[in-house]
């Protein structure tokens, strides 16, 4: 177990290191540089001033050298300063990370629970009318553009019915729990609908596969009730692939969260990255992207741990490579 974790942590560190270099390079390719931003802010700046500033900030040096400087500072915990928020990057990131965790966690749990219920129901009677209907709904959920879904929810619940807020984090001056929750309803609902279709299909496929196996026939032959067989024996077995695929989808879910946060003006990581890239906030964009990557890798690691926990035949040793 320790060896496995160590191996994976080293691998993840390498991925993040490579990512940091790639993203650093890409950000350097974005239009303008920090000095251009200063020039637009200060009309009195002469080209000579700009050149001098570039020298002071080291922007005239080759990219590898600049990257090494950034990396050195970052490894000591200095992620720089956010231009947009006028705060250290880390102070901007931590609250956003918390908000995204709430949003993603709630949507993920809800979607997995609904997907389990629908998938098990569908698999209990494959190719029946009910299975057909669930399959159709799942396909519809997978195919619905997430940002359009969010807009529809806003139109129905905020514009027409006026019962829920269209975006943000809370009403000014109100600190009630209910108030905060009401701002979460639409973002969580739109993220859940966007991922429940995929979860339903995973569960259905895994359950149909499992219900065909010998140990299920044995359980039925023993005289166990259909309910006991499905929920007690088959479900646990079917959960193995489901949990793995669901956790591997984490990167995808994060992308969904980014869309949802942008539309609902929810102050999470996705919105932060979008704002940072659009607003030329290079420090913030770089570190936020690396945090998002780390979050995804952590999700993948959790998938492997769940895999071992659910399947007694698999040990951590067999996952080492």
């Amino acid at each position, binding site marked *: 177990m320790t060896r496995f974790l160590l191996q994976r942590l080293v691998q993840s560190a390498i991925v993040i290191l490579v990512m940091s270099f790639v993203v650093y390079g890409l950000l350097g390719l974005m239009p303008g540089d920090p000095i251009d931003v200063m020039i637009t802010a200060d009309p009195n700046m002469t080209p000579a001033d700009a050149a001098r500033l570039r020298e002071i900030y080291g922007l005239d040096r080759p990219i590898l050298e600049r990257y090494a400087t950034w990396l050195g500072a970052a490894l000591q915990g200095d992620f720089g300063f956010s231009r947009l928020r006028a705060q250290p990057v880390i102070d901007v990131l931590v609250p956003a990370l918390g908000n995204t965790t709430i949003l993603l966690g709630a949507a993920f749990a809800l979607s997995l629970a609904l997907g389990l219920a629908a998938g098990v129901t569908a698999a209990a009677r494959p190719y029946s009318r009910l299975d057909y209907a669930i399959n159709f709904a799942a*396909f519809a959920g997978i*195919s619905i*553009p997430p940002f359009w879904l969010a*807009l529809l929810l806003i*139109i129905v619940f905020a514009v027409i019915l006026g019962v829920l807020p269209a975006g943000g984090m809370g009403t000014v001056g109100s600190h009630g729990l209910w108030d905060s929750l009401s701002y979460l309803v639409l973002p969580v609902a739109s993220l859940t609908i966007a991922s429940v279709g995929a979860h339903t299909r995973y569960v259905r496929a895994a359950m149909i596969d499992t219900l065909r196996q010998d140990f299920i026939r044995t359980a039925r032959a023993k005289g166990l009730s259909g309910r006991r067989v499905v929920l007690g024996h088959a479900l646990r077995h079917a959960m193995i692939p489901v949990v793995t695929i669901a956790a591997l989808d984490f990167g995808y879910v994060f992308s969904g969260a980014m869309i949802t946060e942008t*539309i609902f003006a929810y102050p999470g990581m996705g919105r932060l990255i979008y704002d940072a890239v*659009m607003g030329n906030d290079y420090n913030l964009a770089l570190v936020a*992207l690396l945090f998002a990557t780390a979050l995804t890798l952590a999700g993948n690691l959790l998938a492997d741990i769940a895999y071992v926990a659910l399947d007694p035949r698999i040990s951590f040793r067999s996952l080492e490579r």
Partner: protein
Amino acid sequence: MRGESVFAFARRRFLRHRLAVAGAVCLAVLAAAAAAAPLAAAALGTDPEMADLLGRFAPPSPEHPLGTDDLGRDVLVRLLYGGRISLFVGLVAAVCAAALGTVVGLIAGYRGGWLDAFLMRFTDGVIALPALPLLIVLAAVDLSKLGLPAGLVASEDISLYRIVAIVAAVGWTTVARLVRASTLALRARPFVLAAQAQGAGPLRIMVVHILPNLASSIVVATTLAAGNIILLESVLSFLGLGIQPPIPSWGNLLTNAQELVWSAPMLAVWPGLLIFVTVVSFNFVGDGLQDALDPRALERHT
């Protein structure tokens, strides 16, 4: 069933899949409507950029079957022109992604060894990354800093090429894994060994002997990927990073709609509905093709 060709058999199985047939019909209708966009514009006596500031937010009428938008432009004509772009970009990007994935998968599966290990770790890495944030950075890159000619960078069509390249850059992984797995299995089959014994080179074996055997699974994977890719294009265009106005696309038609959601909610409904129908159709058709072309699906139904 005697004397039935492979294609007739697949066609029969596909036609039995009602949702897939419905999807195929929807796609055909959408493609025909998009292709006929100039005709519709001529019939209505307008074009996708003709503004009429006195007739903003007009309700549906004989001149404007779906009404007009915030600049008084005809919504239906803009939707049809947007469809030309969205469908075309989606298909081209899906084919590019499939081609890239096929090349990577073939090389990894046939060559094996360290090259396979490297390519597959790389694929895993791309799959694991949060795609959309990366795409946003990629979409914001200044192409002139990459040394592309200024004339090309300034042209209106650049956003089309850029989005195809970007979407293909993340969309190839599924096909690559699929092709690699099948190639690994086929590599040890007698007909490949026979070709090797006759002195065929690796390129010939990959292209002439292995690729045709993968054709049906690649077609299925590409169809299923096309839906996702159209979604991705619309998301990026919606965020203002994909296809740039004035070229209309279903994604960027929704960009303005969000601000107008309080005054003209229907503007937000139409483009999304078309994206939804297109993606659902691609998914149903892909599912149907899978059943029709994948022999393993046979026992699943019986």
